């Protein structure tokens, strides 16, 4: 199979990968985008409409993909990675291989497997579905119970697989609240007779215009918000389900009969296997450590000869001993300890700070693979990462390029 070379390889053709690719091409770099599925677009292909305004994902995708088709390699799942001669070498399942100076991981996330929350009944009762399933139903234009009826009463459960130690994910997935509200409004506009109830603990609506979606749901669609977390799902009469929870604002146990139960599933990290040895993940399993100085482009294991550290004239600060250099490829492949911030916290090789004296990584991450984020945040991050990649490739100290572009003297 054939081999290709580029300046940058982007793994993943979801919104973050495509946006980073677009930005990098506009900066004059040669880009390759690898997609493991047969179609580019990532999770954009799975949604029927986008919050907060219900935009069509197909339209967003076609704008993103415009001009990128020559760079896209589909059905190209990366199975092995090596680093030599200042280049990253990747091999895919199909035997295709490619090399580049820099690598951007935009590998996204997976929806939480709701079957793991057994008490919620997903996979046991047919009328328990996830937000992903509901989105699929929206695409077909018809939402119905398994028996083909239009649901009269629907409950939406927040935080399924999020903020849950037993489910293995203690973080907030940040997009489920607004997704649930978007879906509830869509459901009510499709079937005005349907009554939607939300079971929430807090509503985390941090994004722009998300709060106005909440208000619209309350005022226009009369969607009912009940504070409490679902405890259990039981079969009810006929096709229905009986759910139990506490109405925590009333301070009393409560029950409800529903025709359809929608579980708003969270985001689960999906690290790429062949990078497990060299990439650091936080306690939540997403790439990076979430610190501000760690940034969105970072070197997972400072001081162990990480790819990119061979940049001439630059040294890697080892943990607690700034300036102590280690030769390239010295401990390459060394398992990350996850303790990149001990010592005096001098780690800042990847991205942060205008300091040109620290070594820089040639490995970058963008999008939801560095933690739950919505589409807008992913696109913003991808654009910023593209600037970092460009400044790495051209060996320009961080941010100086930005300043130059804006005519600022530093």
């Amino acid at each position, binding site marked *: 199979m054939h081999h290709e070379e580029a300046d940058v390889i982007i793994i993943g053709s979801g919104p973050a990968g495509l946006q980073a690719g677009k930005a990098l091409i506009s900066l004059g770099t040669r880009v390759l985008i690898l997609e493991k599925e047969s179609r580019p677009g990532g999770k954009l292909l799975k949604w029927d409409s986008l919050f907060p305004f219900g935009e069509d994902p197909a339209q967003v995708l076609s704008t993103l993909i415009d001009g990128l088709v020559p760079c896209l390699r589909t059905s190209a799942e990366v199975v092995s990675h090596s680093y030599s001669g200042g280049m990253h070498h990747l091999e895919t399942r199909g035997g295709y291989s490619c090399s580049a100076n820099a690598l951007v991981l935009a590998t996204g996330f997976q929806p939480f497997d709701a079957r793991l929350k057994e008490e919620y009944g997903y996979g046991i009762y047919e009328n328990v579905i996830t937000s992903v399933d509901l989105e699929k139903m929206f695409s077909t234009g018809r939402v119905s119970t398994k028996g083909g009826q239009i649901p009269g009463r629907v409950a939406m459960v927040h935080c399924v697989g999020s903020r849950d130690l037993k489910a293995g994910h203690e973080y907030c997935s940040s997009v489920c609240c607004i997704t649930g509200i978007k879906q509830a409004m869509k459901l009510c506009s499709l079937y005005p007779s349907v009554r939607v109830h939300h079971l929430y603990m807090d509503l985390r609506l941090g994004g722009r215009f998300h709060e106005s979606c909440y208000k619209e749901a309350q005022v226009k669609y009369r969607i*009912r918000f009940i504070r409490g977390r679902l405890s259990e799902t039981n079969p009810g009469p006929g096709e229905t389900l009986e759910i139990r929870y506490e109405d925590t*604002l009333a301070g009393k146990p409560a*029950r409800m009969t529903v025709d359809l139960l929608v579980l708003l599933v969270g985001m689960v990290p999906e690290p790429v296997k062949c990078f497990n040895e060299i990439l650091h993940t936080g306690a939540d399993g997403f790439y990076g450590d979430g610190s501000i100085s760690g940034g969105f482009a970072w070197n997972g294991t400072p001081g162990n000869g990480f790819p990119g550290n061979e940049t001439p004239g630059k040294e890697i600060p080892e943990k607690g001993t700034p300036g102590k250099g280690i030769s390239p490829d010295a401990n390459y492949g060394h398992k990350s300890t996850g303790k990149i911030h001990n010592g005096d916290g001098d780690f800042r090789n990847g991205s942060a700070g205008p300091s040109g004296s620290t070594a820089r990584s040639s490995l970058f991450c963008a999008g939801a693979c560095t933690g739950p984020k919505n589409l807008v945040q992913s696109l913003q991050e991808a654009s910023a990462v593209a600037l970092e990649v460009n400044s790495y490739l051209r060996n320009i100290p961080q941010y100086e390029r930005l300043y130059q572009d804006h005519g600022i003297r530093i």
Partner: protein
Amino acid sequence: MEFGFKLHEDLLVDHDHSLKTYEELLTRVPSLAMCMSCGSCTGTCVAALKTGFGFRKFLVLLRNGSHRELEQALRYCQLCGKCWLVCPRGVNTRKAIIEMKAMYENKSADKIKADPGIKSITQGKAIHVVTQTRTG
């Protein structure tokens, strides 16, 4: 027959019940739909200090169909309107309380005849009821 003990009232809230009363009130006070249960109203309420009730809870009781408890709790509102001043979403709480009171007044004439419990409250045993509600 007297067994020396009483059955505890079922505390389970049944959310299948009809929201007719709440929806009727919504047509008169549309801003009610905007409540996000922040509790600013209760925090500022002078009656809440002594009774534990406030507008946020009134609304929960109404939506949960706990009419009896609500009718009793509403008696402590002095209609000062402080809750209306602090509400961040601009819910017309004072009007909602007046409308709720009016609704119960129209309906309770029959109830007072039928239910000696409510009759006794109207005869000035309010404090007793509060104690019951807070401990129960």
